[in-house]
């Protein structure tokens, strides 16, 4: 825990400065998580503010201060999920497939063939973002929390209110779908290359 229970209790009772302190303690961590969940640094602050806005209006529903962090992660995952769903609706009319360059880059990264400078990092983000766009928002958020954020099954269980065994099954299936998309994109790019 980054803050003590007393601060959470005060924020819950509507103490503005206590809420400010709470946000200040968690915002960097939450913004980092959002960045990895949505893959678009330019939209991170907006989603982050949405998370803390929801926190402000739902603090009174918090059962106890001990479950504050899973609660905050749950709000974060939900806000990211809502953002991704809206973005998908906006993007549906556009081309959502991975470009050949993105596939080749993802492939090279997976094969550890390149050094990474800033522009390459940006391209990696775009390639993984495009890859994860091929699966559902639920799969994307769950997998990112597990594989990229490094949350344990126990922590995920607290966020999703699901038993570990059920989570394992969902994670396995989500991973299989991403793998399938990864392999398909790779084959597609290989096919395009061989046509030239």
């Amino acid at each position, binding site marked *: 825990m980054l803050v003590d229970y007393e601060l959470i209790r005060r924020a819950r009772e509507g103490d503005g400065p206590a809420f*400010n302190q709470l946000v200040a303690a968690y915002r960097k961590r939450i913004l980092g998580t959002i960045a*990895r969940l949505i893959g678009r*640094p330019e939209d991170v602050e907006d989603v*982050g503010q949405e998370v803390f806005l929801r926190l402000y209006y739902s603090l009174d529903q918090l059962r106890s201060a001990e479950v504050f962090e899973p609660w905050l992660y749950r709000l974060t995952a939900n806000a990211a999920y809502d953002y991704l769903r809206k973005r998908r609706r906006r993007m549906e009319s556009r081309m959502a497939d991975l470009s050949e360059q993105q596939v080749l880059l993802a492939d090279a990264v997976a094969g550890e063939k390149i050094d*990474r400078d800033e522009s390459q990092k940006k391209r990696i983000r775009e390639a993984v973002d495009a890859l994860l766009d091929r699966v559902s928002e639920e799969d994307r958020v769950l997998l990112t929390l597990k594989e990229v954020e490094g949350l344990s099954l126990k922590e995920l269980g607290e966020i999703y209110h699901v038993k570990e065994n059920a989570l394992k099954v969902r994670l396995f299936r989500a991973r299989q779908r991403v793998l399938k998309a*990864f392999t398909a994109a790779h084959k597609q790019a290989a096919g395009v290359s061989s046509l030239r």
Partner: protein
Amino acid sequence: MDHRNEIAGSDEARLDRLFEAYRAACPDIEPSAAFMPQLWQKIEARQGMSLVFGRLARNLATAALALSLLLGLAVSISGSRGSQLPSESYAEILADEHYNASLDFEPLRPAPLAEPR
């Protein structure tokens, strides 16, 4: 079979490396100076909205109460004038009016035919 497992295993490992690279490629986001002021603006905007809706709901409730009082009053006034108004239903009034009417109906007969010439 072993070959297929090997390919699947290598794909899994490649995906792991891709996620690892993605994590490294995602920058640490420093919140801007406007983060907190904007957050409070959003909180206040929503509070304002809920105040407006709250006020609207209260006004609607008051209007509904006033209307039901008026209706109650109207019903009680019409109740007090009950003696001037018929207390029976339309069907009962009809039944009363025709009570004394003869129940012996003239049988319907066809019109007589013209005399044969």
